[in-house]
């Protein structure tokens, strides 16, 4: 009898947890704010993952309007110049090329991420930081500073990819 009650109770608990759970809460589970040592430890592991550049990251196209794209080998320098100007006006308050600021450093991003992922991160950040595994990880690394949606058009995000590619080729 006792056992049955226990099983019943734990079942109820599971159900109620399931009913309340959502992705945002799951994100926060790994962060225990009352325990600094474990937080630091976790952050370290996360950071290691991020710099690990596993092949998986490059195959991830992210979530958003950009499903797949083919990039030519050559760089369109006009497009890159346009991308640089958009980056300066819309992004540079939080991202620097060569150092982590509010968000990650941009240098090398085209070697770490697929172009689709980069564009989806620019165009669809709200969903990305909730659902995309890399974006979720980066959010935690950035102390929960969310990636802002700057309301850019697809061609503007594309121009920024061109700027990042040019930067990575030259540096």
């Amino acid at each position: 009898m006792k056992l049955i009650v226990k099983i019943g109770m734990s079942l109820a608990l599971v159900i109620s947890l399931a009913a309340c759970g959502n992705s945002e809460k799951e994100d926060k589970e790994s962060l225990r704010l009352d325990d600094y040592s474990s937080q630091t430890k976790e952050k370290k592991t996360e950071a290691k993952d991020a710099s690990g550049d596993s092949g998986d990251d490059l195959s991830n196209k992210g979530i958003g309007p950009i499903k797949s794209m083919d990039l030519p080998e050559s760089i369109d320098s006009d497009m890159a110049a346009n991308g640089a100007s958009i980056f300066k006006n819309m992004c540079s308050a939080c991202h620097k090329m060569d150092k982590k600021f509010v968000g990650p450093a941009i240098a090398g991003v085209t070697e770490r991420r697929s172009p689709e992922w980069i564009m989806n991160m620019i165009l669809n950040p709200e969903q990305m930081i909730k659902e995309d595994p890399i974006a979720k990880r980066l959010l935690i690394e950035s102390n929960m500073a969310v990636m802002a949606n700057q309301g850019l058009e697809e061609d503007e995000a594309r121009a920024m990819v061109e700027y990042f590619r040019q930067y990575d080729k030259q540096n």
Partner: protein
Amino acid sequence: MKNIFKIAILGVLGLFIQSCGNGGSSDQKSGAISGNAAERVYVAPGEHDEFYAFLSGGYSGNLTVYGLPSGRMLKEIPVFSQFPTNGYGYSEETVPMLNTSFGFVPWGDAHHPDISQTNGELDGRWVFINENNTPRIARISLEYFETEEIIEIPHSAGNHSSSFVTENTEYVVAGTRFSVPYPQEDMAIDEMKGNFKGPLTFIAVGDDGRMKIDFQLKMPGFNYDLAHPGRGDSHGWFFFTTYNTEEAHTMQEVNASQNDKDFIAAVNWKKIQEYVQNGGGEEIDAEYAHNVFDHSTQTATTTMENKVLTVDPREVEGAVFFMPTPKSPHGCDVDPSGEYIVGNGKLSTDLTVHSFSKMITAIENEDYEGDAYDIPILNFDSTLAGTVKEGGLGPLHTEFDGKGNAYTTFFISSEVVKWKLGTWEVLDRQPSYYSVGHNMIPGGNSRKPFGKYMVSLNKITKDRYLPTGPELEHSAQLYDISGEKMELLSDFPTHGEPHYAAGIPADKIKSKSRKIYRLDENEHEYAATNESETKMVRDGKDVHVYMTTVRSHFSPDNLEGIKVGDKVYFHVTNLEQDFDVPHGFAMIGANTSELLIMPGQTKTITWEPKKVGVWPFYCTDFCSALHQEMQGYVRVSGQNSNVPLKWTLDDEEIN
């Protein structure tokens, strides 16, 4: 016994399930009388209301936006009063909006919002609203829900028979309630009679909304109380109620209520427009401010004007007539067809309805019963369409449902009365709580009313809500008027003292509502549209700080080189471009308000540091998980210090 108990429990359970289960049924909501009141005002979480309602704030000086049928307040739009919530009237950009010929006036008394029209129907471009105390008319954009323009009305006093628009928004009118010397002069008050005038101002509205005073009609010195334009056949005419045709200058409570009848002034504005277009009228001196907010520079400017064209109504043949109306009429309302002009005789029990077509016949027949200062007074019986008998006590205002019915408020008997146009029979009456002033049906004073809901705007609240000490907010009530009988659905408190209101179906404007200010369209003189443009510039004692915000830091966030006695201008640009990501800016000890800066916007506040030290500033709007970290420091040095200007972010100088 046990069984009965079980059945009772089942019964209760059944009821409970029933009351929970029909949240999704929409057919009950739309049914005329079916369903209960709670369902019909319930708008589920995340869903939108069917109508916008714009309620004047009265002595708040502002305009509040509500959703109907829920009665939820959506926004307060600052118009004639300073609004520390977002810095309106405090920020350098918006201070000019409150300039007048009397200087900066921080407060106003906002009365009668009216939505712009095209072909007699609401078009949802702008809301106009009048300021009664220091006569002004404002235009509010329904794309931005912001005040874009305020024009002062010279030679006017108690700007009350305002701000009603003609059928194609050709004009917005501003009539004076208090007659005054015209133009103003030093004279004995008891010489008022015959010497004061009651100017009615016609303000032309351009396609872009810009207002310009076209002419002022120099009317006899009566009190012009309310007005509405003709529509349909009567388009081209404007009707104004008058009281104090006695021209009493003291104890008007008694002395302005002596005459059995006052007048409705019928003004053929098309004739006068033609007259002034042909060079008629006389230009006289005037002094008035015209304040315009430019959305590209995000800055308001004041232009002082010094002339106005005045027209003597007797000089334009067939332009102005008086229709006698009992008894100190207040509201002046025109039915959707334009045929009936309702004079709400506030000291009467009856309503007097005039016929436009009979008025035209009477004018053609010169069917006069005299004149007032040489303006013809039409024979009362010749313009009378009918009388609504014993409607109630103290009729004030009438709105229409577009189905042949009129709805009049009765202040003294505290009720709303539905009656039929043409037969004048009373169809229904419902109490209001308490002492209703205006009522409002969306589009209810246009060619095309949306006769589903009516709001009564009540003057007295008393016990309707939880008590909040002696001072109470006013109360409004929502009625369903889709059926034969009116049904009271809900009460909701309002802000300030709403006089009139204007309502419009939400789908006429909501898709046009702006989400952000585009950074690439920001032409503010002191904008920094990216962090590399942020800086400090000293100009004598003035220091201009070009600052930016983004989630969640300021750039710069460390400022040095400010001295006691300086005047610091913080020009703050919000670099965000996402919907609903404002940042705030507050500086310790600033003798002004905060700034609330919407995405892409630049706003400026000043600070005159009085004490040496290191003083913090911070973001006031909870912008992100790192909002509490959104802060900065200003180092203030002594007046004679040599600390150079220095502005940094993350310890790096910005250039």
